[in-house]
């Protein structure tokens, strides 16, 4: 398998463009940089940040999408996190939610642990896996203009789950840290949807 050409896209600029007009989309972020990227766009009640549970972001998105069919759900994660949840792409393909998008911020490295190269920089294509699992739309994006078009696309209705890979520069911007108290974040998120804390 061939090496992919490294992207020069800044991850923070990409996530900011993706979420600029997110409206009432509910967002779940995978551990590490995607959680910092999401927080850097502004802390919100309808964000659920992961600090662990690697491989779970898109599947939390699935449970949420099934519980809230009238809302759009975005699982914002990284290549390493999604690689640990590869089977989940099959599960989501079969479940076929119409309101779940997975966006992988792909720097082709495990950024949190010393920038070791991941599978996506060595030819593994998450969008091809998603196609094979029945996702209804996929794409690989490399420029800010691509991301701006994607932001408009994911605001539209879909017939099934979609997965997009945004190739970004492998660097760690200054961390933007949300609360690590998962009970607080959970209860805040649920209150946003009108559910009282127990």
């Amino acid at each position, binding site marked *: 398998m061939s090496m992919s050409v490294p992207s020069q896209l800044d991850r923070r600029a990409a996530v900011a463009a993706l979420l600029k007009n997110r409206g009432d989309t509910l967002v779940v972020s995978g551990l590490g940089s995607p959680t910092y990227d999401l927080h850097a766009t502004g802390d919100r009640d309808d964000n659920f940040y992961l600090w*662990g549970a690697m491989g779970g972001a898109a599947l939390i998105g699935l*449970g949420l999408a099934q519980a809230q069919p009238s809302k759009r759900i975005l699982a914002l994660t990284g290549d390493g996190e999604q690689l640990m949840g590869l089977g989940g792409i099959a599960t989501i393909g079969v479940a076929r939610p119409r309101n779940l998008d997975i966006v992988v911020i792909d720097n082709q490295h495990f950024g949190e642990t010393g920038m070791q190269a991941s599978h996506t920089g060595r030819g593994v294509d998450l969008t091809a896996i998603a196609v094979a699992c029945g996702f209804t739309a996929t794409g690989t994006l490399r420029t800010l203009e691509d991301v701006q078009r994607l932001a408009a696309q994911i605001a539209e209705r879909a017939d099934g789950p979609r997965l997009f890979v945004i190739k970004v520069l492998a660097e760690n911007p200054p961390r933007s840290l949300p609360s690590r108290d998962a009970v607080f974040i959970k209860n805040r998120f649920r209150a946003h949807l009108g*559910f009282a804390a127990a």
Partner: protein
Amino acid sequence: MHSPQPNPDTRGSDDWPSELYRVLKAADVRQMSYVPDAGHSQLIRLFSADPDVTTSVLTTEEEGIAIAAGAWLGGQRSVLLMQSSGVGNCINMLSLSAIGRFPLLMLVTMRGEWAEFNPWQVPMSRATQPSLEAIGLKVMRAETAEDLVETVESAASLAYESDQQIAVLIGQRLIGKKKW
């Protein structure tokens, strides 16, 4: 509500899957995910035929832990079905339920502990309860059909009303010997 009715001919103490279905429906379970086990087959059929419950077949059991957390974030109660060999697959993902105090109800059919034909089931069988307890779950166990139904009813209350993370282990003696 269009819930499939249990077959009246099979009701009684042998028909614990229909009783579990009734108890879980009464607890307002709206999502069910599973990796199949022969011991869960009837419960899987009942939920799959129920248009008010969204069912998800999983590639590995830990996916169901994440789905359950997402369901709760979105205001729905859920249940996760697996056999004991799947518990080992779940351990790190259970951090999510434990640290987020997400309600969690897992029903685990035991293998490798009673008239077991396959020795490969034995090590994880031995590790099931200790590993669940080590990650912070409350483990409840039933060996008879009557006790199982009551245990699941109580576990559902603890999970959904008291934000607890519960695994109910269903003894292999209750499920019966696997036919080869």
